[in-house]
């Protein structure tokens, strides 16, 4: 592999040939703001927030679409660069609702983070504001086009990751919006509700509806786990607040799926709190299942199985183990049947 050496903010760094200036900075922990860039998507060079100054170049090039070159001298934080970024942010904020105190994205919003960093208040440019209807048509995704900064990441995620191409830009100029064809609500489009668009949205334009009002990012702990539905084995983060799961968010480090999920994995976690959960042992008495305590239920099972084993032999007892349960639980179940009951009568829905 060919390596290149360049200087960034006076620091000499080496990167493999083919690396962009943005990646060269990030590989070396040099922060660059971006709104339209995501490592898993092709670079659009759209938001221009990642501009840097490169010696010998006339304008400020966007670092996400500029290849690093041998001997390049890059400045990422000089006044000219910061001023250019600030103007871009001022323009974005000019047409962005400043209801941050109630916005679900607060605390995880890239626009708010950069506005804070660059001292953008929204006072510089005053003008018309969008007043578009919110798409609340489905149980999963809340789309507020007024908060959209037109970065295009959701469009790319839908096209490049999902291969669905449900989203695109529509209208022109100030009226530009992102949404399904004919600006239909998500529900009436061919959207599968995989939520990949939500996972890349840098602002509050696309949010998980189930999480609205349930917790702030700084109140939430994230627990990486494996999806309980199909056999693909996607990983994601359970978002937990006060001992309760409030939602699922993508974990970019997930080995199989990255940020991609399907509608079940991302939004089906509310089954945890289904009213149909059994939360206490039940024993059949006079034909009815009635609540019991654990000792009574476990003693009853142990004594009945013991009795049946004694009377009819161990092979008169069988177990169905579970393709939903963990490896450790399946191991314990087959060990229980083989070593404790004394039979190989253990199977599960291996073939369905």
């Amino acid at each position: 592999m060919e390596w290149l050496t360049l200087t960034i903010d006076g620091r000499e760094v080496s990167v493999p040939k083919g690396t962009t200036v943005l990646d060269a900075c990030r590989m070396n922990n040099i922060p660059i703001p971006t709104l339209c860039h995501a490592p898993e998507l092709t670079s659009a060079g759209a938001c221009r927030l990642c501009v840097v100054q490169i010696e010998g170049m006339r304008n400020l090039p966007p670092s996400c679409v500029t290849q690093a070159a041998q001997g390049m001298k890059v400045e990422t934080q000089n006044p000219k660069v910061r001023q250019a970024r600030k103007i871009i942010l001022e323009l974005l904020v000019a047409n962005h609702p400043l209801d941050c105190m109630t916005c679900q994205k607060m605390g995880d919003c890239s626009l708010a983070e950069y506005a804070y960093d660059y001292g953008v208040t929204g006072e510089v440019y005053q003008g018309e504001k969008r007043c578009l209807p919110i798409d609340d048509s489905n149980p999963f995704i809340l789309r507020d086009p007024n908060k959209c900064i037109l970065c295009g990441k959701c469009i790319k995620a839908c096209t490049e990751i999902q291969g669905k191409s449900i989203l695109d830009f529509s209208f022109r100029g100030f009226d530009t919006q992102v949404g399904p064809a004919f600006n239909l609500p998500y529900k009436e489009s061919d959207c599968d509700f995989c939520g990949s668009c939500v996972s890349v949205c840098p602002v509050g334009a696309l949010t998980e509806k189930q999480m609205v009002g349930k917790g702030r990012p700084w109140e939430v702990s994230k627990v990486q786990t494996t999806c309980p539905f199909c056999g693909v084995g996607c990983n994601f983060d359970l978002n937990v607040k006060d001992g309760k799961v409030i939602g699922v968010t993508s974990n970019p480090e997930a080995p199989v799926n990255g940020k991609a999920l399907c509608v079940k994995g991302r939004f089906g976690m509310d089954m945890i709190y289904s009213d149909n959960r059994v939360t206490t042992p039940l024993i059949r008495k006079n034909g009815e299942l009635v609540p019991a305590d654990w000792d009574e239920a476990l003693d009853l099972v142990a004594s009945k199985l013991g009795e049946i084993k004694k009377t009819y032999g161990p092979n008169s007892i069988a177990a169905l183990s579970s393709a939903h349960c963990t490896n450790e639980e399946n191991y314990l179940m087959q060990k229980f049947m083989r070593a404790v009951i004394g039979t190989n009568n253990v199977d599960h829905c291996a073939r369905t």
Partner: protein
Amino acid sequence: MTNSINEIPNVKAMFVIGSNPTEAHPVIGTKMKQALAKGAKLIVADPRCINLAEDADVWLRLRPGTDIALINGIMNIILANGWENKEFIAERTEGFEKVREAVKEYTPEVVSKVTGVPVEQLEEAARIYATAERSSIFYTLGITEHTCGTDNVMSLANLAMLTGNIGKESSGVNPMRGQNNVQGACDMGALPNVYPGYQQVASPEVRAKFEAAWGVPLDPNPGFMIPDMFGAAVSKDLRALYVLGEDPVITDADANHVRKGLEALDFLVVQEIFLSETAKLADVVLPGASYAEKTGTFTNTERRVQMVNQAIKPIGNAKTDGEIICELATRMGYPFNYESSADVMEEISKLAPQFAGITHERLGTQGLQWPVPHAEHPGTKFLHEGKFNRGKGLFMAIENQLPAELPDEEYPFLLNTGRKLSHYNVFTQHSPSLGIHSPEELAEVNPSDAKKLGIEDGEVVQVASRRGELKTKVKVTDRVPEGMVFMTLHYFDSPTNVLTNGAYDKVTKTYEYKVCGVKISKVS
């Protein structure tokens, strides 16, 4: 899967048969779409116009239950054109001549007649699969849920070996396992004939190893497979059943027979997180914990063992399933003393060679793909490189076989079953949001059949087979061919498995969920 999921975007030709990845394995479906965007070719074999069929270079709309004829026909064309991989056949396989002989009769014309697929499509599929640089087969239950399921799978193995498309990166035979941990439940020996790690119960050496580890004598005879259990319950050979996290009343074929079996038991224990239809029949219900409430591991379809990390405490008075089993074992006089699920994994790693190098600590955030034979081993990305488990790959001559029950005058429609994107088996019915999004069964009926029956889109009809009947809403669509009705297995109100046939594969005893005869009538 012999390959890894992230090898899919680099496959050059995908042969998807009896599988609907964009709905049943959605993220694998997206990886396939990424391969298409990079120029891969796609062959889809399915009687239904699944989503991927629309993107396919060739869509083989075969008659249900004619997979072997189709595959033999493709092999016939490959051999006629000299597209077979002679070097691979010579070096890595045996038994090839028998297959060459067997497929001679499966000429394109004969196969076209049996399968309903035009000759030119058969030829194009054979050319694409055999001549691409890296071809991969992807199959799911449309292959296995037939009375000839094992033979269907062996036919696909023949095809892969014939062209040398196995044992390479992005090239192999890839069954996509259904449920989140069906791979792991098999790996852990939750099967009546093998201990953890697929070690045979019938082998005296293996049994001696487990007897030494567990300190008790073990039964040398394999036990009941699922279909045997319900019959044995009716005949009173089986007296008690302990069901963990499964709802056979809804999910097993010929559900009325299953219910009869469960009702005949002396004692039924169901350990579940929901009050399932099976739990409603139980003598004792033990409340288990959901994935969010416990720590352990799941193994996905590419053999990746991954952590499940506890996020919250078990709901209410529930306990983790492992804890419940341990308490029962202890109460029955065999103490299960494990401090944590990591301890259980340590025991597994000592007994199952594929798991020897696995600990919870090593799994971390990325998991490991078995086999992991020792503590430094990085895991195995794809299988069968250079050598098969048995040494040489064995070709098997397979003949086409008819399903156990085909439509007839009384039951003129063919019922085909499967999954849809918005649900997973029966338990997503307990998700309020998915329930709102996709609330009811929509049996797919072809427009010309709907016209003949005088039924309209959205109408409720009665569907009946020899075994049972139900009511369902209808979706009129040409995604299903004439004469076929397609239903999912997701809904309690339209429990499709009261209709399906309990006939099963002779080796695996997998039910023939994919084909049976039904009649459809208007509900007045």
